[in-house]
């Protein structure tokens, strides 16, 4: 897996030729600028798609909830109301921007920015496919944990700066909930780090396989529990129901963004939806095989050998398959997240803390110890490999 998107693009002869031509044309070394351009285009595409997905997320949320509650949902704007999110966006932009009189203006403006920056920066390491990963950092998951904690600061500052009691309550709750649930998430991620032997998402995904039994979720019983710990932690981390205490509309009006209006509110919402997608993506990359496609179709070699396609096309078909695999799994998880929201009632604030500290964290620690001991005893084998060795041994009459 190439370290960055640019390295992937650079493999192709056409690109190399183009760079060489440009060098000749400008008379200087333009590689740096080309790199920048490639990354800029890649980043813009990713952000654009993410913004669309975030917008569609609001639409999907309403449509699915309507489905679950046997209602119609949005159906006026566009076919099946699919353009509803655009209408919402236009509304956001046109709304008046109000600053509360007592607010700390600087922090009030800074909070949404921190949220959106924190979320967008995480997109850099999300492995959409082996080629389309903006940067496969060596410390990928660790970086993600660090940079996404900006969201916690943003929630806190958002709640604080408005100088409203509802906001303040929501902000405090939100921040303490986000940091609390970061603990089980981090520890569960640690188990995957143990298994994959690297912090980068590349290492996560490349040590798994395309078929479900090669995924880390089914690697051993501990990771199976770990996935659910991660998933629950993820719901709380993104303030999703049943953990939407910080913005509990029936208690706190609207939580930390009570006083936010217009586009700033929209940015908070956008950050939240993108964060859900990113965390679903992380869950997929860590537990569900990431972008891996079964039977090694993702590398594209098979198209070249069997169908006689040119190498470049085979490779890109593989990339598309990988992208499809990743996005499908992520969206499926996204669907589950929405489904959960409309199925479970909100829990109390003391229960939030109890679940985190008395259930998830001990469970995550147990998983960590379990995976460590498991790896030590079985020499990194998954439960299926163990079984297959067992059967092989039985078949060969108890030999080695």
């Amino acid at each position: 897996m190439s370290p960055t998107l640019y390295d992937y693009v650079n493999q192709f002869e056409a690109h190399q030729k183009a760079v060489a031509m440009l060098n000749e044309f400008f008379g200087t070394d333009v590689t740096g600028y080309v790199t920048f351009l490639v990354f800029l285009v890649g980043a813009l595409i990713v952000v654009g798609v993410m913004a669309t997905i975030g917008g569609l997320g609001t639409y999907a949320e309403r449509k699915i909830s309507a489905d679950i509650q046997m209602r119609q949902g949005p159906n006026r704007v566009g076919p099946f109301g699919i353009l509803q999110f655009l209408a919402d966006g236009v509304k956001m932009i046109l709304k008046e921007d109000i600053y509360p009189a007592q607010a700390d203006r600087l922090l009030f403006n800074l909070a949404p920015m921190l949220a959106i920056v924190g979320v967008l920066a995480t997109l850099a390491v999300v492995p959409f496919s082996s080629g389309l990963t903006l940067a496969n950092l060596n410390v990928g998951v660790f970086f993600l944990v660090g940079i996404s904690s900006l969201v916690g600061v943003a929630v806190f500052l958002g709640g604080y700066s408005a100088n409203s009691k509802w906001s303040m309550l929501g902000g405090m709750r939100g921040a303490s909930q986000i940091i609390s649930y970061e603990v089980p998430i981090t520890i569960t991620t640690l188990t995957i780090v143990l298994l994959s032997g690297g912090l980068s998402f590349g290492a996560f995904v490349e040590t798994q396989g395309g078929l479900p039994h090669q995924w880390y979720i089914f690697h051993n019983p501990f990771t199976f529990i770990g996935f659910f710990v991660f998933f629950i932690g993820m719901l709380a981390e993104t303030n999703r129901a049943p953990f939407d205490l910080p913005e509990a509309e029936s208690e706190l009006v609207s939580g930390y963004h009570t006083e936010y209006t217009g586009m700033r509110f929209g940015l908070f919402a956008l950050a939240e939806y993108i964060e859900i997608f990113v965390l679903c993506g992380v869950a997929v990359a860590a537990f569900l095989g990431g972008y891996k496609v079964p039977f090694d179709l993702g590398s594209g070699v098979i198209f070249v050998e069997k169908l006689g396609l040119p190498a470049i096309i085979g490779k890109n078909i593989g990339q598309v398959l990988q992208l499809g695999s990743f996005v499908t799994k992520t969206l499926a998880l996204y669907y589950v997240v929405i489904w959960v929201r409309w199925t479970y009632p909100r829990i109390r604030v003391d229960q939030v803390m109890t679940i985190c500290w008395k259930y998830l964290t001990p469970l995550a620690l147990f998983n960590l110890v379990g995976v460590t001991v498991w790896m030590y005893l079985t020499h990194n084998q998954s439960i299926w490999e163990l079984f297959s060795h067992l059967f092989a041994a039985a078949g060969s009459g108890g030999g080695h």
Partner: protein
Amino acid sequence: MFQDILFICSAILVIAGTLGVVFSKNLMRACTLLLGTLFGVAGLYAVLGADFLAASQLVIYAGGVIILMLFAVMLTGGSADKANKFGIEKIMGMGSVKTYVIAGLTVLVFSLTIMKLLASFLKGYQKLDELPAFTSTVDKIGTMLVTDHVLAFEISSILLLGALVGAAVIARPRRG
């Protein structure tokens, strides 16, 4: 090229954040600006090739310490009176001209001292002709943590345990 940009951005963040911390009159803003400094330092670590250090700077400082500070500011920010029960004005808490003058004098003395140290060091400093390429430091740090520095590694867990227990005992909510 890019590393220069990264360095400059980080340096600007660091200096701006630092000056903000020094001169901000609002403690909450000072904390937020400290976040900027810490991000800048993380960027500087990244330019130094210490990728793990940069990430742990983000995780520990941005995620942990700053939130802790914000909470602490929140928990002590209350009481609407202008002065506390000792009659000291709260606004003084962020410093007055007098304190800044004293600080300026102290700093003058000490910065001269540091410059003396640095001057003698930089005089003998041989610039390396070429620096090694960046490689991942995670594995090396991990190996060092369990071999040469295993005692520090284990003791740091004891240190953190002590910090946790001590701080929990001190800060535990009490009745009355």
